């Protein structure tokens, strides 16, 4: 009985290791540079999420993640928090009023109060992040039961997540779009359940955040 239990456990552990190795994320980053960039130590960047679409919204948690990653490590960049900027600029950067093109930003900068606030923050680049994470290819099923003697779950579930985000970089000094960076991260998640469900989640959005932030940092620094 002991030997049988050990054998079952060993097989289960082997399956888990295989699944763990398989639930990774693959990330692709594309950069399109239109002009030279560079940033001084007294200048900063603000990262804003696009929220004009009717069927999705760029999550503020993702925008915050990108901003935080850019302030860390080598060649860190000063990033103004999104909500602080939007509140300070109210009502010029709400979903209804935010500039959609650099020509709109040019018109906006004619307002003295907007130009003064931009100067106060020391904004050199505005980065517009647009995208969302989609879950596709769900398969499998898990059923859970509970009774007087106890309970548990049995089954297997899997799904694929695809996090696709675009970042457009606007130079506030020249009022031009200086480049676009696209990040696409996909990953397969697994949820085997043998009494207790064991989630093996592919962290696609976290990986997309890290790669996008690293690429943006390089791009803004001019390298």
């Amino acid at each position, binding site marked *: 009985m002991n030997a049988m239990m050990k054998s079952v456990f060993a097989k289960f552990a082997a399956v888990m290791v295989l699944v763990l190795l398989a639930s990774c994320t693959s990330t692709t980053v594309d950069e399109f540079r239109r002009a030279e960039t560079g940033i001084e130590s007294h200048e900063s960047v603000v990262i804003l999420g696009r929220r004009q679409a009717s069927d*999705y919204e760029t999550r503020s948690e993702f925008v915050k993640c990108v901003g935080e990653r850019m302030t860390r490590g080598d060649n860190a960049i000063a990033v103004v928090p999104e909500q602080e900027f939007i509140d*300070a600029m109210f*009502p010029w950067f709400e*979903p209804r*009023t935010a500039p959609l093109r650099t020509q709109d930003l040019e018109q906006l900068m004619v307002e003295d*109060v907007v130009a003064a*606030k931009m100067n106060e923050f020391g904004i050199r680049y505005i980065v517009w992040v647009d995208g969302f994470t989609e879950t596709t290819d769900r398969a499998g099923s898990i059923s859970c039961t509970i009774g007087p003697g106890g309970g548990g779950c049995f089954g297997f579930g899997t799904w694929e997540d695809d996090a696709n985000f675009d970042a457009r970089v606007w130079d506030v000094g020249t009022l031009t779009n200086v480049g676009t960076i696209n990040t696409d991260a996909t990953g397969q998640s697994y949820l085997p359940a043998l009494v207790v469900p064991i989630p093996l989640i592919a962290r696609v959005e976290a990986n997309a955040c890290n790669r996008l932030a690293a690429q943006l940092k390089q791009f803004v620094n001019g390298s």
Partner: protein
Amino acid sequence: MIARMRPGQQHFKRRWRVAVMALGLLLSACGVNNVVVEGNFPTPNIARLPLTVAVYYDDALRDYAYVEYSETGQEEYNIESGISHIRLFDAVLPAMFDNVVLINDLEEAAQLGVDAVFAPAIEEFQLALPAKTKLDVYEVWIKYNMRLLTSEGDYIADWVLTSYGKTPTSTFGSVEAGINDAAIVALRDLASSFSLSFGQVPEVRDWLSARGIRS
């Protein structure tokens, strides 16, 4: 001597506790959920108009509440947004006009000799929940009737404004929090469109022009 319960008695007591807990859970699922919209609103960065304006919030605005019904016709959510609307206008109006005075009835305006009276009203409120629309967003639409009157109560301008707000669902967020966040986004949308479009309403533009004020 310590009295001990027999096994049968212990089993009965345990089943009774489970039954009471289950009943409590069932009862908590019934009844309407109350949402009082709460949020902070920043002051708009816009040029002030050189006017003294009285603002009148009638009882319909102050006590405004929207009830969302379930598919079976039962009251599901009661959303109270009157106070948050007043907080919003209290933040926006002083940034739009040199002086803002709160009045409790329209007769007070004539005595104060203000330039105009602003009396907003909510005409319609709509809510879309993810459970019903199968989208991953909470949505709020609000339709307003904005009224601008002279201090004597004569009509200057009367126009309709709509606002929209949405917020995505979050993994551990409650429905009430989603509704509140979407409503706050809608209120901010109202503030931005009202403050930026006020001078572009044709009757308001003509009235300002007659007073020698450029909008």
